């Protein structure tokens, strides 16, 4: 039952995004944007973080439209940029909405028809992505406490190098754990 609910949610997400792609009306796109914001608000998702990441991209798209298509009238350029930006923002928010209402566990279970090796890779990837992000946040806090500025491009190494070390350490322990629990790769 749970599996079929997840499947319906996934199909809904795909159909929704396909529809968003074909919409050219800025009013409808704005309404969809507001609906998604409400859904995310009720799911207590981290809307602010996502908006902070995606809105600058949207603004950049509008600016590029205004700069590069100078042969078209201003309102048309602006409208075209707005529609493109809105579509990207809505698709990004729809994925966040989907993940807020669907657990990663349920999503991966949907693919249990795949070979065991691939399922294991999927599961470890699903575990590692949020783990790496939270590790990066922790490292950022540590480096800030050492008075290292972490928001500039040049000081990115202060985060990436220890992060790589931690990720490799984790990956090694996971592989040893898997072996110690009797895992035999199908390819062996």
């Amino acid at each position, binding site marked *: 039952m749970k599996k079929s609910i997840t499947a319906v949610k996934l199909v809904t997400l795909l159909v929704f995004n396909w529809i968003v792609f074909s919409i050219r009306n800025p009013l409808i796109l704005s309404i969809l944007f507001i609906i998604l914001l409400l859904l995310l608000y009720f799911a207590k998702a981290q809307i602010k973080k996502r908006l902070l990441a995606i809105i600058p991209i949207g603004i950049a798209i509008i600016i590029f439209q205004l700069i590069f298509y100078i042969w078209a009238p201003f309102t048309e350029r602006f409208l075209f940029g707005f529609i493109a930006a809105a579509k990207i923002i809505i698709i990004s928010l729809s994925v966040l909405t989907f993940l807020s209402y669907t657990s990663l566990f349920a999503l991966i279970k949907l693919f249990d028809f795949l070979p065991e090796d691939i399922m294991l890779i999927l599961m470890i990837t699903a575990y590692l992505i949020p783990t790496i992000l939270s590790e990066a946040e922790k490292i950022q806090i540590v480096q800030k406490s050492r008075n290292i500025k972490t928001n500039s491009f040049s000081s990115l190494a202060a985060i990436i190098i220890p992060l790589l070390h931690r990720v490799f350490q984790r990956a090694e322990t996971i592989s040893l754990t898997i072996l*110690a629990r009797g895992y035999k790769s199908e390819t062996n």
Partner: protein
Amino acid sequence: MKNGIIFDHVSFGYSKNKLQIDAASFAIEKGSFVGVTGVNGSGKTTLALMLNGIIPHELHGQFSGTITVDGIDTKTKPVSYFAQKIGMVFQNPDFMLFNLSVTEEIAFGLKNIKLHNAEDKIKNALQMVGMEDFANRDPQTLSLGEKQKICLAAVLALDTEYIVLDEPVAMLDYQGAVNLYRILDELNKKHGKTIIVIEHDTDFLSAHAKHTIIINRGKILFNDTTKKVFAHKTELRKIGIKIPQPIR
């Protein structure tokens, strides 16, 4: 002694120039509670990785000597074979949990070894560590102490005769450590499991292990009953090992 684990002149180094384990010879009796201690970099974790054949099968280097588990040479069988005999709990429980639910985490080993009655085994393992209410939880949302218990439950479900734990209390608070050692004691005394604990905390070792091995720079320095080993106070202080204090 056919039963138990026997190290016979075992040496290992990741490179030719430096040996992590240098001519180690000792025996671990079945049903015993053994502690292994030494300072950082003395070779404790390397020794643990040799017990189930991860060294030399998966981590390669200069290996010599013989390790037998119940009479079977670790070189002759793959790690998956020894996984049915030796359960391993590594140092950091945070790094060991990769499944999306506690049940899945414990079921992972059962699926690999193809054991029957998986549901009962998962339930029993969780009961043994007092975590039966956590079956559907996401392992990443648990505290370190709870994660450590889940790692132990994942090993208990496999019903291995030997359980190896690498610094199991390094990340636990005092009460968490006391609880974990209480579970290990019970597994040893009630269920007859052989417990091998790699441990920095000599207080816990002296309170629970019947037999202790001290390792220093890859060499086995002492290998005797815990009482006799910790009687060598001067030598132990010299190499930086804390003389145990009684735990209240």
